[in-house]
Protein backbone atom coordinates (compact mmCIF):
# COMPACT_ATOMS: atom_id res chain seq x y z
CA UNK A 1 0.00 0.00 0.00
CA UNK A 2 1.47 3.34 -1.07
CA UNK A 3 1.08 6.65 0.74
CA UNK A 4 -1.19 7.99 -2.00
CA UNK A 5 -3.49 4.97 -1.78
CA UNK A 6 -7.08 5.91 -0.88
CA UNK A 7 -7.07 3.04 1.63
CA UNK A 8 -4.14 4.41 3.62
CA UNK A 9 -6.00 4.52 6.95
CA UNK A 10 -2.67 5.19 8.72
CA UNK A 11 -2.88 8.78 7.52
CA UNK A 12 -6.06 9.31 9.57
CA UNK A 13 -5.63 11.12 12.91
CA UNK A 14 -5.58 8.36 15.51
CA UNK A 15 -6.87 10.68 18.25
CA UNK A 16 -10.04 11.47 16.29
CA UNK A 17 -10.44 8.09 14.61
CA UNK A 18 -12.62 6.47 17.25
CA UNK A 19 -16.41 6.41 17.08
CA UNK A 20 -17.01 8.30 20.33
CA UNK A 21 -14.19 10.83 19.92
CA UNK A 22 -15.26 11.50 16.33
CA UNK A 23 -18.86 12.08 17.46
CA UNK A 24 -17.65 14.44 20.22
CA UNK A 25 -15.48 16.35 17.74
CA UNK A 26 -18.38 16.58 15.24
CA UNK A 27 -20.70 18.01 17.90
CA UNK A 28 -18.13 20.46 19.28
CA UNK A 29 -17.22 21.60 15.75
CA UNK A 30 -20.81 22.73 15.20
CA UNK A 31 -21.38 24.59 18.51
CA UNK A 32 -19.65 27.25 20.64
CA UNK A 33 -19.45 24.90 23.63
CA UNK A 34 -21.44 22.10 25.22
CA UNK A 35 -22.01 20.61 28.67
CA UNK A 36 -20.83 17.10 29.51
CA UNK A 37 -24.44 15.90 29.84
CA UNK A 38 -25.33 17.23 26.39
CA UNK A 39 -22.38 15.38 24.84
CA UNK A 40 -23.21 12.21 26.77
CA UNK A 41 -26.86 12.26 25.63
CA UNK A 42 -25.98 12.98 22.01
CA UNK A 43 -23.16 10.44 21.79
CA UNK A 44 -25.00 7.80 23.81
CA UNK A 45 -21.97 6.90 25.95
CA UNK A 46 -21.71 6.21 29.66
CA UNK A 47 -20.24 8.89 31.95
CA UNK A 48 -17.01 6.94 32.49
CA UNK A 49 -16.50 6.08 28.84
CA UNK A 50 -17.13 9.62 27.65
CA UNK A 51 -14.88 10.98 30.36
CA UNK A 52 -12.00 8.76 29.17
CA UNK A 53 -12.43 9.91 25.57
CA UNK A 54 -12.68 13.57 26.58
CA UNK A 55 -9.46 13.23 28.56
CA UNK A 56 -7.74 11.85 25.47
CA UNK A 57 -8.98 14.77 23.37
CA UNK A 58 -7.97 17.25 26.07
CA UNK A 59 -4.49 15.75 26.37
CA UNK A 60 -4.10 16.02 22.58
CA UNK A 61 -4.93 19.72 22.88
CA UNK A 62 -8.06 19.40 20.73
CA UNK A 63 -10.56 20.22 23.46
CA UNK A 64 -10.58 22.49 26.52
CA UNK A 65 -12.93 22.29 29.48
CA UNK A 66 -14.25 24.76 32.01
CA UNK A 67 -15.88 23.80 35.29
CA UNK A 68 -18.76 25.80 36.77
CA UNK A 69 -21.64 25.45 39.22
CA UNK A 70 -25.28 24.89 38.21
CA UNK A 71 -27.76 24.82 41.09
CA UNK A 72 -24.92 24.00 43.47
CA UNK A 73 -23.59 21.04 41.49
CA UNK A 74 -20.38 20.97 39.46
CA UNK A 75 -20.70 20.84 35.68
CA UNK A 76 -18.22 21.05 32.81
CA UNK A 77 -18.44 22.77 29.46
CA UNK A 78 -16.24 21.62 26.57
CA UNK A 79 -15.03 23.61 23.60
CA UNK A 80 -12.94 22.79 20.54
CA UNK A 81 -9.52 24.50 20.42
CA UNK A 82 -8.10 25.98 17.22
CA UNK A 83 -5.74 23.00 16.67
CA UNK A 84 -8.72 20.72 17.37
CA UNK A 85 -10.85 22.46 14.75
CA UNK A 86 -7.97 22.23 12.26
CA UNK A 87 -7.43 18.53 13.02
CA UNK A 88 -11.14 17.80 12.60
CA UNK A 89 -11.22 19.69 9.32
CA UNK A 90 -8.18 17.71 8.09
CA UNK A 91 -9.82 14.46 9.17
CA UNK A 92 -12.98 15.26 7.20
CA UNK A 93 -10.91 16.19 4.16
CA UNK A 94 -9.05 12.88 4.37
CA UNK A 95 -12.31 10.94 4.42
CA UNK A 96 -13.72 12.99 1.55
CA UNK A 97 -10.50 12.41 -0.41
CA UNK A 98 -10.82 8.73 0.31
CA UNK A 99 -14.36 8.73 -1.11
CA UNK A 100 -13.23 10.77 -4.11
CA UNK A 101 -10.40 8.32 -4.73
CA UNK A 102 -12.81 5.42 -4.73
CA UNK A 103 -15.19 6.93 -7.28
CA UNK A 104 -15.11 5.10 -10.63
Amino acid at each position, binding site marked *: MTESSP*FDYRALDDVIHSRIRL*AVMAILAS*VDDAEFTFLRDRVGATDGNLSTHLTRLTEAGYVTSRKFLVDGRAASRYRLTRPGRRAFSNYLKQIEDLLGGLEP
Partner: protein
Amino acid sequence: MNQQTAQGELASIRSLMADSQAFLSGTWQHQLLWGTLAAIGLSATWVAAREESYTAIGWIWGVTLVSGWLCSVWLMRRGTGSPVRNVATRAFGGIWLSLGVTLTLIGTVSIYSGALEPSSLPGVLALVFGAGYFASGFMAGMPWLSAVGVAWWASGVGLLFRRGPGGLLVLAVLVLLLEVMPALVLRNRERAGAARS
Protein backbone atom coordinates in the same frame (compact mmCIF):
# COMPACT_ATOMS: atom_id res chain seq x y z
CA MET B 1 -11.85 1.73 5.92
CA ASN B 2 -13.92 1.03 2.80
CA GLN B 3 -16.14 3.33 0.79
CA GLN B 4 -19.34 2.27 2.55
CA THR B 5 -17.83 2.81 6.01
CA ALA B 6 -16.44 6.21 5.00
CA GLN B 7 -19.79 7.30 3.52
CA GLY B 8 -21.62 6.14 6.64
CA GLU B 9 -19.15 7.98 8.85
CA LEU B 10 -19.50 11.20 6.86
CA ALA B 11 -23.30 10.95 6.95
CA SER B 12 -23.37 10.45 10.73
CA ILE B 13 -20.90 13.33 11.23
CA ARG B 14 -23.11 15.66 9.14
CA SER B 15 -26.25 14.55 10.94
CA LEU B 16 -24.66 15.10 14.39
CA MET B 17 -23.40 18.53 13.33
CA ALA B 18 -26.77 19.63 11.91
CA ASP B 19 -28.67 18.41 15.02
CA SER B 20 -26.27 20.14 17.39
CA GLN B 21 -26.37 23.40 15.42
CA ALA B 22 -30.17 23.51 15.54
CA PHE B 23 -30.53 22.39 19.18
CA LEU B 24 -32.47 24.94 21.19
CA SER B 25 -33.47 24.81 24.84
CA GLY B 26 -33.41 26.84 28.03
CA THR B 27 -35.26 29.76 26.45
CA TRP B 28 -38.49 29.53 28.39
CA GLN B 29 -37.29 30.81 31.79
CA HIS B 30 -37.09 34.45 30.71
CA GLN B 31 -40.45 34.27 28.93
CA LEU B 32 -42.10 32.82 32.02
CA LEU B 33 -40.48 35.44 34.27
CA TRP B 34 -41.38 38.44 32.10
CA GLY B 35 -44.83 37.12 31.20
CA THR B 36 -45.77 36.70 34.86
CA LEU B 37 -44.33 40.09 35.86
CA ALA B 38 -45.97 41.87 32.91
CA ALA B 39 -49.38 40.31 33.62
CA ILE B 40 -49.18 41.47 37.27
CA GLY B 41 -47.87 44.92 36.28
CA LEU B 42 -50.55 45.46 33.63
CA SER B 43 -53.37 44.37 35.94
CA ALA B 44 -52.04 46.63 38.71
CA THR B 45 -51.76 49.51 36.21
CA TRP B 46 -55.36 48.99 35.11
CA VAL B 47 -56.50 49.22 38.74
CA ALA B 48 -54.29 52.30 39.37
CA ALA B 49 -55.59 53.99 36.20
CA ARG B 50 -59.18 53.45 37.34
CA GLU B 51 -58.29 55.05 40.68
CA GLU B 52 -56.47 57.83 38.76
CA SER B 53 -53.40 57.13 40.88
CA TYR B 54 -50.76 58.05 38.29
CA THR B 55 -47.86 58.12 40.78
CA ALA B 56 -48.63 54.49 41.60
CA ILE B 57 -48.29 53.58 37.89
CA GLY B 58 -44.73 54.94 37.89
CA TRP B 59 -43.92 52.86 40.97
CA ILE B 60 -45.56 49.72 39.59
CA TRP B 61 -43.45 49.82 36.41
CA GLY B 62 -40.32 50.94 38.21
CA VAL B 63 -40.51 47.90 40.49
CA THR B 64 -41.64 45.55 37.67
CA LEU B 65 -38.88 46.53 35.25
CA VAL B 66 -36.05 46.72 37.77
CA SER B 67 -36.96 43.38 39.38
CA GLY B 68 -37.49 41.79 35.95
CA TRP B 69 -34.08 42.84 34.64
CA LEU B 70 -32.36 41.87 37.92
CA CYS B 71 -33.94 38.40 37.75
CA SER B 72 -33.00 38.09 34.05
CA VAL B 73 -29.37 38.94 34.79
CA TRP B 74 -29.42 36.45 37.69
CA LEU B 75 -30.81 33.72 35.39
CA MET B 76 -28.11 34.44 32.80
CA ARG B 77 -25.31 34.41 35.40
CA ARG B 78 -26.67 31.22 36.96
CA GLY B 79 -26.02 29.55 33.63
CA THR B 80 -29.02 27.25 33.81
CA GLY B 81 -30.04 28.04 30.28
CA SER B 82 -29.07 25.84 27.41
CA PRO B 83 -26.66 22.91 27.91
CA VAL B 84 -25.17 23.90 24.58
CA ARG B 85 -24.29 27.27 23.10
CA ASN B 86 -24.66 27.44 19.34
CA VAL B 87 -25.93 29.65 16.51
CA ALA B 88 -29.56 28.96 17.44
CA THR B 89 -29.18 29.87 21.15
CA ARG B 90 -27.15 32.98 20.26
CA ALA B 91 -29.74 34.14 17.71
CA PHE B 92 -32.65 33.38 20.04
CA GLY B 93 -30.94 35.17 22.94
CA GLY B 94 -30.12 38.14 20.71
CA ILE B 95 -33.70 38.47 19.46
CA TRP B 96 -35.21 38.42 22.95
CA LEU B 97 -32.60 40.64 24.56
CA SER B 98 -33.09 43.29 21.86
CA LEU B 99 -36.88 42.96 22.07
CA GLY B 100 -36.74 43.19 25.87
CA VAL B 101 -34.83 46.47 25.62
CA THR B 102 -37.20 47.72 22.88
CA LEU B 103 -40.30 46.88 24.92
CA THR B 104 -38.80 48.54 28.01
CA LEU B 105 -37.95 51.70 26.04
CA ILE B 106 -41.36 51.87 24.35
CA GLY B 107 -43.07 51.33 27.71
CA THR B 108 -41.09 54.08 29.44
CA VAL B 109 -39.42 56.64 27.18
CA SER B 110 -42.17 56.92 24.59
CA ILE B 111 -44.78 57.51 27.30
CA TYR B 112 -42.74 59.97 29.41
CA SER B 113 -41.63 61.88 26.30
CA GLY B 114 -45.23 62.16 25.19
CA ALA B 115 -44.39 60.61 21.82
CA LEU B 116 -46.99 57.89 22.29
CA GLU B 117 -50.49 58.12 23.71
CA PRO B 118 -50.83 55.77 26.72
CA SER B 119 -53.94 54.23 25.15
CA SER B 120 -51.86 53.17 22.10
CA LEU B 121 -49.27 51.40 24.23
CA PRO B 122 -50.93 47.93 24.52
CA GLY B 123 -51.34 47.70 20.73
CA VAL B 124 -47.77 48.79 19.97
CA LEU B 125 -46.33 46.38 22.55
CA ALA B 126 -48.41 43.53 21.10
CA LEU B 127 -47.00 44.23 17.62
CA VAL B 128 -43.43 44.07 18.97
CA PHE B 129 -44.20 40.78 20.74
CA GLY B 130 -45.53 39.47 17.41
CA ALA B 131 -42.22 40.20 15.69
CA GLY B 132 -40.31 38.34 18.44
CA TYR B 133 -42.46 35.24 18.40
CA PHE B 134 -42.75 35.05 14.63
CA ALA B 135 -38.96 35.36 14.17
CA SER B 136 -38.25 32.86 16.97
CA GLY B 137 -40.65 30.27 15.59
CA PHE B 138 -39.35 30.72 12.06
CA MET B 139 -35.74 30.38 13.21
CA ALA B 140 -36.31 27.42 15.52
CA GLY B 141 -38.45 25.54 12.98
CA MET B 142 -41.49 25.71 15.29
CA PRO B 143 -44.51 26.79 13.19
CA TRP B 144 -46.75 26.89 16.28
CA LEU B 145 -44.48 29.57 17.81
CA SER B 146 -44.72 31.62 14.60
CA ALA B 147 -48.51 31.23 14.85
CA VAL B 148 -48.25 32.76 18.34
CA GLY B 149 -46.50 35.71 16.66
CA VAL B 150 -49.36 36.05 14.15
CA ALA B 151 -51.86 35.97 17.04
CA TRP B 152 -49.88 38.80 18.72
CA TRP B 153 -49.96 40.85 15.50
CA ALA B 154 -53.70 40.32 15.06
CA SER B 155 -54.29 41.28 18.71
CA GLY B 156 -52.04 44.34 18.30
CA VAL B 157 -54.07 45.56 15.31
CA GLY B 158 -57.29 45.00 17.27
CA LEU B 159 -55.93 46.89 20.29
CA LEU B 160 -54.86 49.84 18.12
CA PHE B 161 -58.34 50.12 16.59
CA ARG B 162 -60.11 49.70 19.95
CA ARG B 163 -58.02 51.92 22.21
CA GLY B 164 -59.20 52.50 25.75
CA PRO B 165 -58.46 51.84 29.42
CA GLY B 166 -59.55 48.21 29.00
CA GLY B 167 -56.60 47.68 26.66
CA LEU B 168 -54.31 47.16 29.64
CA LEU B 169 -56.42 44.32 30.97
CA VAL B 170 -56.72 42.77 27.50
CA LEU B 171 -52.92 42.94 27.17
CA ALA B 172 -52.53 41.28 30.60
CA VAL B 173 -54.72 38.39 29.41
CA LEU B 174 -52.82 38.22 26.11
CA VAL B 175 -49.51 38.03 27.98
CA LEU B 176 -50.84 35.07 29.99
CA LEU B 177 -52.18 33.31 26.90
CA LEU B 178 -49.47 34.18 24.37
CA GLU B 179 -46.34 34.45 26.52
CA VAL B 180 -46.74 32.45 29.73
CA MET B 181 -48.55 29.54 28.02
CA PRO B 182 -45.95 29.16 25.21
CA ALA B 183 -43.21 29.32 27.87
CA LEU B 184 -44.88 26.42 29.70
CA VAL B 185 -45.20 24.46 26.44
CA LEU B 186 -41.48 25.00 25.74
CA ARG B 187 -40.63 23.93 29.31
CA ASN B 188 -42.72 20.75 29.00
CA ARG B 189 -41.14 19.91 25.64
CA GLU B 190 -37.67 20.40 27.05
CA ARG B 191 -38.44 18.19 30.06
CA ALA B 192 -39.99 15.52 27.83
CA GLY B 193 -36.86 15.62 25.64
CA ALA B 194 -34.61 15.29 28.70
CA ALA B 195 -36.65 12.34 29.98
CA ARG B 196 -36.38 10.57 26.59
CA SER B 197 -32.58 10.92 26.57
